[in-house]
């Protein structure tokens, strides 16, 4: 299997541990990831909210890059996925928009065909459950709070997901020995999207605070997300709020731990909220296994 790899700007330029973890984990699972001169998705909360047509055109440029190689595009962020998948979906149906986009891409000698599909990596993992189990070296035995991310699930008319009671992520963390702990309002937004985190940080923080309170009540070892943007919000907000210290892991970092990768290679130490205790706990688990 081969994919064009769309890391997105947060995983590249803010939390590179996520990019690294993804590369390691997918290499272990024998999935080839290929780089392209991608721009950022562009961000739905900013570009789409300012001018949707620009959003379509820039999104289409990214989508078109791997078309000559016939590669689908793997994203590791719900925001990137939201942009690329929505753009792809719209251009699939809307001929006028497609013509518009191609008119502009034509100016730089590109065309958009729609032959490369964006895929969220969790959907990819869904079909690789056996591979995950085969690569598992450590049974993590953690209590985790999973966070799906709005734009991975919704709008369902585009994503085709079940937005009210999804189980996929819960099942995947289960494969590496983690227990997904239910908590109140587990599916609500983290508060980052729509330009709110940058435009109205206080509002964003309030939404996040409520969310963190609910997670804290569930008494978990860490938060697991499938979106670099949510990841950044969870990690940075806890520092701002000061009253929380729940480690935040992107699913690929969690998988990395389970695959026996050293936490430093996964960039866990770069999080603002310390992951030290968590890493200790996992090491303990590994030791326990080794001694068996």
């Amino acid at each position, binding site marked *: 299997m081969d994919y064009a790899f769309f*890391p997105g*700007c*947060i995983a*590249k*330029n*803010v939390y*590179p*541990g996520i*990019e*690294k973890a993804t*590369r390691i984990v997918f290499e272990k699972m024998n999935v080839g990831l290929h*780089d392209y*001169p*991608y*721009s*950022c998705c*562009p*961000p739905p*909360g*900013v*570009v789409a*909210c*300012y*001018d*949707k*047509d*620009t959003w379509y*055109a*820039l999104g289409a*440029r990214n989508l078109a890059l791997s078309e000559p190689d016939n590669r689908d595009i793997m994203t590791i962020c719900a925001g990137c996925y939201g942009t690329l998948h929505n753009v792809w979906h719209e251009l699939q149906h809307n001929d*006028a928009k497609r013509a518009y986009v191609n008119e*502009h891409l034509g*100016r*730089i000698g590109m065309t958009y065909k729609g032959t490369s599909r964006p895929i969220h990596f969790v959907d990819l993992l869904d079909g690789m459950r056996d591979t995950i189990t085969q690569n598992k070296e450590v049974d993590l035995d953690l209590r985790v709070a999973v966070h799906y991310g*709005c*734009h991975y*699930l*919704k*709008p369902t008319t585009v994503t085709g997901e079940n*937005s009210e009671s999804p189980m996929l992520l819960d099942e995947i963390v289960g494969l590496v020995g983690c227990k997904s702990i239910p908590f109140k*309002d587990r599916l*609500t*937004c983290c508060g980052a*999207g*729509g*330009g*709110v985190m*940058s*435009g*109205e940080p206080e*509002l*964003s923080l*309030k*939404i996040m605070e*409520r969310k963190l309170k609910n997670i804290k009540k569930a008494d978990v070892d860490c938060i697991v997300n499938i979106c670099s943007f949510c990841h950044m919000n969870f990690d940075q907000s806890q520092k701002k709020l000061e009253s929380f210290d729940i480690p935040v892991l992107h699913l690929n970092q969690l998988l990395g731990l389970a695959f026996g990768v050293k936490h*430093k*290679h*996964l*960039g866990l130490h*770069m999080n603002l909220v310390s992951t030290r205790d968590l890493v200790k706990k996992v090491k303990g688990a590994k030791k326990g296994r080794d001694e068996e």
Partner: protein
Amino acid sequence: MDKTMDDIIREGNAYACIQCGRCTGSCPSGRECGLRTRKIIHMARVGIDVFKTEELWDCTTCFTCQERCPKEVKITDIIIELRNLAVKNSYYPSMADVPKIIIQNLYRTGNGQPLSPEVSKLRSIIGLDKEPNDIAKDKEALADFQKLLDGLPLMRWGGI
């Protein structure tokens, strides 16, 4: 392809709204601020210039309301369109200013969130290339990208 209020109401099914309030009840943002999703839709369909209201910018575009609307009002899509309309009419409140920086970054580096020297160092510590293998590195691609952006409406409306 500029849309009028009328287009937005029609394409988003806003006329069908029965004011059930399921949208506001679902809204994670409205719980913390003055955003009343139902009211936005109502104002739109009765012809009030709702794009002028600041609450429009409180939405996190989480799509929960749109998912639950029994009348298939494309609420979040409408909110995004209304924001577009606001921008086109230079009607964005101060909170919409910060994203401008993001747009500037986007133009300059191809990324809304550009690479900082600190993170570049961190990248090499964990064994990644100092600079990501993306548009920021590929000068030719970046020039094309800027050319593309130059001809797109964002640059007109974004006020940059």
